[in-house]
């Protein structure tokens, strides 16, 4: 981490903007400055806008919905120039994301049990490490459960985070039953009167039935112990992943009733426009599930609460 920590502190707003830089430049260069000025809205402008949305992974159907709404308003002469179009687009996108905003809180239950799930390599363990630091700083006692017993050295990786944050890590040997690890961790948390248990799980592709069954089993074991538990099930999504993120959200919601998301790796060139598609999908399913945090860098402080307004502004910002 030393390398990352030396990097100068740019402040969150600039970090997010820099992180989404590529996204923004896609919108800025693709649609160009037309969104800046007050010029007439031609068919070319709309086409370019559509292209730009597609390039940020918003997805075919959500892009179509957004564009249809904008085109309708253009045809009704409600939007007369590109500046108005820019404003309307921003408003539309913010509205789409609005249901995804809800602050993360540790409620009264003790121990408060949080599960982290997701496909391989999205950053579950790293997110746990960062969140543990955050919660510890808030004065809560935290315990980590090394539920990823499959991947080589996943336990060691979590232990390093435990040492860094000076918090206990409950683990068993590699290959152990992860449900039993999580169970042990809860028992330990109870005995030690720990406030929060953060449970890591092995990454798994959502179409692997047997692995999803295993995840359900962990969920059942915890649920038997406390009917309200797990109190949060967080699906970690990689900003770089395209339309498959929708399938991930659906499958994990179905298997373990995901309660919220964390969006990682937003400091790269990836666009995470798929979050709009996920928002649309959730709406169709009649569900509201928040994005609790976004990851905008490697530092512990770079796990930030999600703000839909900031997110869209950073996406559409002018140079």
């Amino acid at each position, binding site marked *: 981490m030393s390398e990352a920590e030396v990097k100068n502190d740019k402040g969150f707003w600039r970090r997010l903007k820099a992180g989404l830089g590529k996204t923004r430049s896609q919108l800025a260069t693709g649609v160009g400055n037309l969104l800046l000025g007050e010029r007439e809205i031609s068919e070319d402008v709309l086409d370019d806008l559509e292209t730009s949305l597609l*390039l940020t992974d918003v997805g075919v159907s959500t892009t179509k919905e957004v564009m249809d709404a904008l085109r309708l308003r253009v045809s009704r002469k409600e939007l007369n120039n590109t500046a108005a179009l820019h404003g309307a687009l921003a408003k539309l996108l913010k509205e789409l994301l609005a249901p995804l905003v809800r602050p993360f809180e540790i409620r009264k239950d003790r121990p408060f049990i949080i599960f982290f799930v997701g496909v*391989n390599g999205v950053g579950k363990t790293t997110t746990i490490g960062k969140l543990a630091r955050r919660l510890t700083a808030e004065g809560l006692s935290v315990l980590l459960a090394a539920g990823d017993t499959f991947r080589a050295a996943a336990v*060691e990786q979590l232990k390093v985070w435990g040492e860094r944050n000076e918090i206990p890590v409950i683990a068993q040997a590699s290959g152990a039953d992860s449900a039993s690890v999580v169970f042990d961790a809860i028992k330990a948390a109870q005995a030690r009167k720990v406030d929060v248990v953060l449970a890591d799980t092995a990454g798994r592709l959502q179409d692997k039935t047997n692995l999803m069954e295993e995840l359900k089993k962990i969920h059942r074991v915890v649920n038997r112990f406390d009917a309200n538990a797990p109190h949060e099930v967080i699906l970690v999504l990689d900003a770089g992943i*395209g339309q498959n993120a929708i399938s991930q959200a659906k499958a994990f919601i179905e298997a373990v009733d995901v309660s919220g998301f964390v969006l990682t790796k937003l400091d790269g060139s990836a666009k995470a426009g798929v979050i709009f598609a996920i928002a649309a999908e959730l709406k169709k399913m009649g569900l509201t599930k928040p994005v609790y945090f976004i990851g905008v860098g490697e530092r512990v402080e770079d796990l930030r609460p999600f703000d839909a307004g900031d997110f869209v502004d950073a996406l559409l910002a002018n140079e």
Partner: protein
Amino acid sequence: MFDNLTDRLTQTLRGISGKARLSEENVSAALRDVRMALLEADVALPVVKDFISQVRSKALGTVVSSALNPGEAFVKIVHTELVKVMGEANDALDLNTTPPAIILMAGLQGAGKTTTVAKLARFLIEGRLGAKKKVAVVSADVYRPAAIDQLQTLAAEVGAHFIHSTPDEKPLDIGKRAVVEAKKVLADVLLVDTAGRLAIDAAMMAEIRDLQASLSPIETLFVVDAMTGQDAANTAKAFNDALVLTGVVLAKADGDARGGAALSVRAITGKPIKFLGMGEKTDALEPFHPDRLASRILGMGDMLSLIEEAQRKVDKRSAQKLARKIQHGQKFDLEDFREQLKQMSNMGGMTNMMDKIPGMSALPANAQSKIDDGMFKKMAVIIDSMTAHERHFPDLISGSRKQRIAKGSGTHIPDVNRLLKQHKQMQKMMKKMSKKGGMQKMLRTLQAARPAAGVRR
């Protein structure tokens, strides 16, 4: 992985077949669907545009020969263009240098570099690329906690020589030291794992550029997650500009992602995709064959990969034993059935084989999802709960025996009945095969099931 795209194109092309000829109108309709499917499959937009325009001009210019109907002709064009975008043929690893041949891995965080190193090591150690190789591995990932431990564990598992490194060292020093040690232990190949990095992180990109300059690896492989969205093209280009890449590994290609990244990366960087990561285990690495993948995209199946996999994994001795037994007209008993089930699980189970078999994509999705590898495990457990005598003479299994077997295997009597019925059917099939010419007859049926259009070899 390409299942959804396959469904889409299959449907689109089904619509076009039967039309009298490829007109501007019906080609455009099909192409709109193809464009949509490709975008939904996360193929980068510029690549989609190029691809569509190529197919359009090819399709309209084509004189449909009397041998093909317009639909078949269109499939052939789309197939040919897909193959072209993904690279004409399989590019093998180039290890032709004074040992150790150094392979450097590069990619974003969480793409799957370390796992790929282990898979590649195993691939080379097992001699899946010519002669068996002695492989050394080293990790230059001094950032991610326990990354080095991860590689050490995996190296032990696959039988690679692990060269130690510590998070206090500089990646460049690790690399230099590793080359010396690899020479000392007479390794044929040295695989160098690196930390995941963002293409826009100038300092980290400079680090790996220096590492490459110092090691001058014969192969520098870019590992990309098959689920990557539009960014796959950008990232691959950035890595390709910063480093001299020689190839790409598409990781996590066994998921349900439509895998458009494969098309994008190849088209944007011009570098061949050399391998696909097809699972979590260290043997799940497959050479990338553009023509086969194109066939898979178009719903033509991938029998060749399946056959190669079968040859590698099926225990030849027990297969020959069974063949002899059947030839001599002996009965196919439950012991043999048990052996068959074991071989099947060796091959990664039914689900792994599914999308390689032609025509499977035509099955409705819910039928496909019903095929569950757990079922085969259950069957094996039931057989395990029988006595040797019962396995050889299944007809003996009476009601009370069934009850005992069900109890012993933690199943129910209907499960036992189902297994016995399935075994009976298998027995019947085996009997047919053992008759003179039976095998040829079966192969002919299989051959006929393979679609003709676009499949070469």
